């Protein structure tokens, strides 16, 4: 084990670089500015809750903030020539020693709180961690490690930063254990909590943090972010991709690796014939999601179908279609959901289909059957 890229990590998205490897967070200058203002005011709150849809750059921003805090020495009063000018950017040179160490995960001032290995004993968990099988939740044992981190003096008496990726994954027990530290952290400590669904966190955790909201990215920023993440995308695809990914770089990366746009086109084509359904096309779509290693594709089809029925519902209720993802989509949406009643019907269908899919996944139903069932269900609504 000599290369960090081979190291299984619970907070890494398949096909995308780890947030710590991303030099800059894109399209979140508002959040960056808010943090910087708090920093320069000299009264930095110790607990920050970074919220926003999955994949909008919460982790990247957290790593950027952590780099900034650890690499910027605390100001020591006014010197002979007055105080040094306050920093105007969170950016730290990637060759800075702190940045280097953070990339290698060897920065003593940083504690990364994330999911551990799966299993019921310590030995099992250690083994699972090395093999990349992770627990679904952040257990209280992980929080106890943080206790040990806080129990010792800070390296070189400097700052300490804790990144919790993500706070949603903490069990109740873990969240309560963290609460103590969130209330009274040691001096010069900042905790950065990442949350996709802040409403589901314990209210006690929420109330002790200052919230930093990250907005979905507009298409221009999306293009830049995708390029930075090493993805190649045709200029014409950026706008539809952004809409389909709902402004999340993470989702866009997933769409790109699984060729999501083409898949969406396929689903659209399948549904455009409604109330008639092209059974042959449906079967071939269903088959393409079955089998080993196709789980990601299956998930994506379910998400896309769900998104499409949500768009249908919206068209019906508001009376006009949302911005088109693919050409001709608007006509189809209006045709299938001409009035608010149809919109409500689609909304119900969308929810039912979602429930059925979740249930089917939990009891491990054959993916092909699941897809077929989903589309037959949609057909009923039309």
């Amino acid at each position, binding site marked *: 084990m000599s290369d960090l890229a081979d*190291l299984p990590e619970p907070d890494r998205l398949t096909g995308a670089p780890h947030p710590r490897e991303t030099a800059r967070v894109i399209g979140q200058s508002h959040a960056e500015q808010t943090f910087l203002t708090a920093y320069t005011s000299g009264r930095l709150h110790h607990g920050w809750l970074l919220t926003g849809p999955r994949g909008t750059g919460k982790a990247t921003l957290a790593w950027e903030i952590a780099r900034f805090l650890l690499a910027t020495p605390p100001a020591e009063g006014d010197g002979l020539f007055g105080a040094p000018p306050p920093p105007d950017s969170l950016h730290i040179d990637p060759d800075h020693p702190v940045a*280097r160490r953070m990339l290698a995960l*060897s920065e003593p001032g940083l504690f990364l709180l994330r999911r551990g290995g799966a299993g019921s004993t310590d030995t099992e968990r*250690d083994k699972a*961690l090395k093999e990349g099988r992770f627990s679904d939740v952040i257990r209280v044992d992980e929080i106890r490690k943080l206790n040990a981190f806080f129990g*010792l003096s800070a390296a070189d008496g400097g700052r300490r930063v804790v990144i919790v990726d993500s706070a949603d994954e903490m069990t109740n027990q873990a969240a309560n254990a963290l609460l103590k530290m969130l209330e009274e952290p040691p001096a010069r400590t900042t905790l950065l909590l990442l949350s996709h669904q802040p409403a589901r966190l314990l209210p006690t955790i929420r109330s002790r943090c200052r919230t930093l909201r990250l907005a979905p990215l507009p298409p221009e920023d999306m293009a830049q972010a995708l390029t930075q993440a090493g993805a190649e995308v045709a200029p014409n695809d950026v706008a539809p991709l952004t809409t389909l990914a709902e402004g999340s770089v993470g989702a866009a990366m997933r769409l790109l690796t699984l060729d999501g746009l083409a898949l969406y086109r396929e689903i659209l084509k399948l549904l455009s014939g409604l109330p008639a359904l092209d059974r042959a096309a449906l079967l071939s779509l269903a088959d393409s999601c079955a089998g080993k290693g196709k789980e990601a594709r299956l998930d994506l089809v379910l998400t896309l179908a769900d998104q499409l029925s949500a768009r249908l519902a919206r068209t019906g209720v508001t009376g006009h279609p949302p911005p088109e993802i693919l050409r001709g989509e608007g006509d189809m949406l209006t045709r299938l959901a001409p009035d608010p009643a149809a919109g409500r019907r689609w909304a119900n269908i969308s929810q039912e289909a979602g429930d059925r899919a979740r249930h089917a996944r939990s009891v491990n139903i054959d993916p092909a059957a699941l897809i077929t069932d989903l589309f037959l269900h949609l057909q009923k609504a039309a």
Partner: protein
Amino acid sequence: MKFSMERAALLRAVAQAQSVVERRNTIPILANVLVEAEGESVTFRATDLDIEVLDRALAQVEKAGGTTVSAVTLHEIVRKLPDGALVTLAADPGSGRLSVSAGRSHFSLATLPKEDFPVMATSEYDCNFSAKAEVLRRLFDKSKFAISTEETRYYLNGVYMHVSDGEDGKVLRCVATDGHRLARIDAPLPQGADDMPGVIVPRKTVGEMRKLLDQDDMDIAVSVSETKVRFATPDITLTSKVIDGTFPDYTRVIPQGNTRKLEVDASEFAKAVDRVATVSSERSRAVKLQLDEDRLILSVNAPDSGAAEEELAVAYADERLEIGFNAKYLLEIASQVDRENAVFLFNSSGDPTLMREGDDTSAVYVVMPMRV
């Protein structure tokens, strides 16, 4: 970087350094040892982010420089090389590998850039002094058994080293406690240690440091600041974080007015305690001490497994007393006594008991009784 050194010296240096590497660690760079060659010496540095060990050894340096390589692998290789071999280590910047060769054996090891390796800053210590290895060894060896393992009171997970007032002026004092027993060991204050801030040295550091203290006459350079502590011999430097907490006011729990004095041969006493405790399989095995004039009866009564009793001739001149203790605590305390008889001072069966060696007050132990 390129240098050569004798296998035994290399093995010693690498072994010292790699012992600090955390076995369960998953971060690649922390499994590595930082090798740096400069002038006529080579340093080997390893860390678990809390403790850093730096080993210095003389070598024939051909080219200065540094790299990091897996500590365990390097240690294994050097260990398996024949004794007396001359080992050459050379970093190849082109391939990013470190070549290790000795005689006809050649190894090529993967490396990681040395910039990724976290090095503990060596600056700003509030206090530097020098002490004999023998003195430090006594301070820590006699106190470490009482270190707590309970995580909620994390400030008890170490030995509190500080300057205090002893009977004959200032002393360097080490205290450890887990809330059931306490050890307080004093040593004459070394020159220059007057202003030392009190620090709690973590348990792992105490264990690692012990390896530096084998030679009695060796002078150990000790440096202390609020956040760090360093112990150094000419060859090895051990730097550690300290526990960030306030050690409780232990003076309150050391009994002052205990008058009932029991004097007993420590090893006989320990052996007797060990024998009678055999019949009980519980985790906290209670041993009852019945004291009468010059007579001590040790007894254990475990309803499930049986009972045991043993009588010892002791020096005791006070009124009758019955008191119970955890057998393990009694054993550990009695085994600290190595020169004279153990002297126990009791008050009543519910109060903490004090133990010391003869009339020597430089090592004092306190243990809480158990209800029996």
